[in-house]
């Protein structure tokens, strides 16, 4: 089954909050949730043929077990099959080095997760709306 949004997030509660915010937009059915970087790479490259069209949007946490979000981003952006997929870094890190590295690797957007629930919900919903309906993608 093909899902249009890929959420790569190891923290179950953050994932739940994200999914809950997207549910209010009716997008939750389109979300594929993966829990670490290795799983994400397998899903995107090895098993790509199993689930038809690639995702239209990837929400990527940076601090992930096994393979980090930065490594996933690098792999995505350096492979011609996936380099057009919009990748949104959705992270708790405000560190300059993470920001710089992400943009160097070609991230499409960098969003710091607010701690406040309402702000968080609003942020995730804004991302969902913009990237799934306003923004035009190649794939």
């Amino acid at each position, binding site marked *: 089954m093909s899902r249009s949004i890929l959420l790569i997030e190891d923290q179950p509660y953050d994932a739940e909050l994200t999914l*809950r915010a997207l549910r209010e937009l009716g997008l939750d059915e389109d979300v594929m949730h993966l829990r670490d970087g290795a799983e994400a790479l397998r899903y995107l490259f090895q098993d790509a043929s199993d689930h038809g069209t690639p995702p239209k949007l990837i929400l990527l946490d940076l601090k992930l077990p096994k393979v980090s979000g930065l490594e996933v981003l690098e792999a995505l952006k350096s492979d011609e099959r996936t380099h057009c997929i919009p990748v949104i870094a959705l992270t708790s890190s*405000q560190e300059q080095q993470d920001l710089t590295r992400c943009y160097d690797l070609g991230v499409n957007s960098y969003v710091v997760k607010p701690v406040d*629930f309402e702000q968080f919900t609003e942020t995730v919903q804004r991302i969902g709306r913009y990237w799934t309906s306003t923004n035009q993608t190649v794939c």
Partner: protein
Amino acid sequence: MSSVSPSVSDRSTTTPDYQALYETAPVAYFSVSPGGYIQMLNPYAADLLGYKRRALVGQSALSICPPGPEGRERALQVLQQVQQGHSVEKAEMRMVRSSGTELWVHLTVHPVQNDDGTIERFQSIVTDITSRKEMQAQLETNQVALESRVQARTAELERVNEELRAEIRERRAVQEQQQRQLAAMDAAMAGMSIHAPNGAFRYANQAHATIYGYDDPEELIGESWRILYDAQEQAYIEAEVFPVLDRGEQWSGDLTGLRRDGSTFPVYLTLTPLDDGGLTCICEDITARKEREQQLELYTRRLEVLRDIDQAILQAQSPADIAQAAMKRLHHLVPCSRSSVALLDRNTNEGTVLARYSAGESMLDSGVTVPLSHFQFTEAALHQQHHIVEDIRSVKQTPLIQQLREEGIQAFMTLPMSMEDTLIGIVNLGTEDPGCFTEQEQRIAQEVTDQLTIALRQAQLLEQVQQHTERLEQRVEERTKELESFTYSVSHDLRTPLRAVDGFSRMLLNAHSDQLDDEGQRLLGVIVESAQRMGQLIDDLLALSRLGSREMRSGPIDMDALVDDVIDELDRAHPDRNIVFSCDPLPRTCGDRSMVRQALTNLLSNAVKFTQDEAPARIRITSDTKADVPTYVIEDNGAGFDMAYADKLFGVFQRLHDDDAFEGTGVGLAIVERVVQRHGGHVEAEGAVGEGASFTFTLPKETATPP
């Protein structure tokens, strides 16, 4: 053999041998400016006139001449003559000492010219001829007296008896006086003699005889001067000295005298021609003076070596470089063909050769480490005394000793390098000449060794300090990395659970509030609020910690614009508040714009926060125009604070108000202080409870280079 030529003006004063001569010559030298002011004089000249050398430098040359035709007037004539480029030889004139006594001198002046022909200075030589003048005067007086007596005798021949007795008395008195004079000359330290035109001794005093190894001056009378000099010296005198005397001039200089026993010695002579073709001679055994001169030269060299070593320390050269330099110089002072410096390590019982030097060869390799037992240092070195091995065959034949023998070393001296009662190394000097080093050489060698020890110790300390600094820097780097990774974890890991606490509490409040009573809802509200507070706290702390490690990007800052910007933002954030901001023109500064903006935001939002109970709230931003550096003041009419706690204001988590009154994390002012300090400025606060607060901070001048 050397002779002192009175004509020294054409010699360069920069050559050291001349300088030494200038300093030590028993002749008074003056260097006089074209305008007639004394520029330099040698010690002899200062002594002659009874002044300290410094006292005469810069004085007019006329000032050392008494008034009158024989003094200042004569000096003025000489000056005018030499100013026209002419030399003046032996102008006879008077000078005056600091004590006021006068002396007769011969003044010889040579102008020294610049390349362009203008006069650079005058070289003047002053010879004291007072005693000669006095003797001359006395002789004249005697002659006049005798003549008058002869006339009297002729005229009053008849008054024989009385007159004759008187005459006899008078002549006896004259004789006695002359005898006294001769006795005085005999007793004088300087040798004095008078020679007939054929060079034979007419008179010699005791000192003259003694100087040349004769018991009695009588032995010399009638003999030729030649018996006091060997053939070579006689030839020199005939060729170089006689022509001067033949011109009627005085000659003085060093010669080599021949004693009766055949030994030779240096002697300083002053020869003055007499009108009858004879001459007077004043001589002085200058053996001691020559030795002093040699000592002086040696002393100068020692100073040079010590200075070189000091220089090496100052240039922070490596211990090996310093040791090499010291050994190279030592070879000039102490006759040795080979020297080495070894550092001892009493822990490993090994010695490491730090430097080796071999005369006539380039520097040898060093850095060899050998067991301590191979070194030929004895208990003496351990007890910090130097030790001399006069015959290398007499000591234990270690591999090192054998190597020395192969190099032709016959004798050597070992000197201890002691620091704070610890032997840290040894200096070895080897010589191919069997025999021992003189006491003076031993002293010099130890002196150089001591200086070297200090230098090496300094170099070692310097190395240690550098190593220590490197270690510290490494540790700082490690700690910075630790801190950065800690910051990273905090920023990421602490926020995630907080978000869950906040999010899930809200979800509970929103979706399940009907299942909670009022108290349950209040409790959940506390959880939500606390989570948000903690989130803010983490953000503030991270901002503070990032300030410390962040690189500053300095540039000019328009403070007026920046303050307006921040005020706009605060106005928008508090639309319900009645705040009157007033802003004076502010000086521009130089710094990291975003950091300074952060500090301004914190200070102004503090002012906004603590004036929340005022209507209108008044916040003034001014500058101290009298200060040296840009100084800004932010005043408000808010709650203020107790000055007793002023020092706590800028501490992290320090709050002077309870949370119910004014909320905050207690980090804002700490950030302000950190920003200002990183810009090399300072911040201070003033206030009183209920009467507002004022914060003053400084930033660098716009033109200043940022710290």
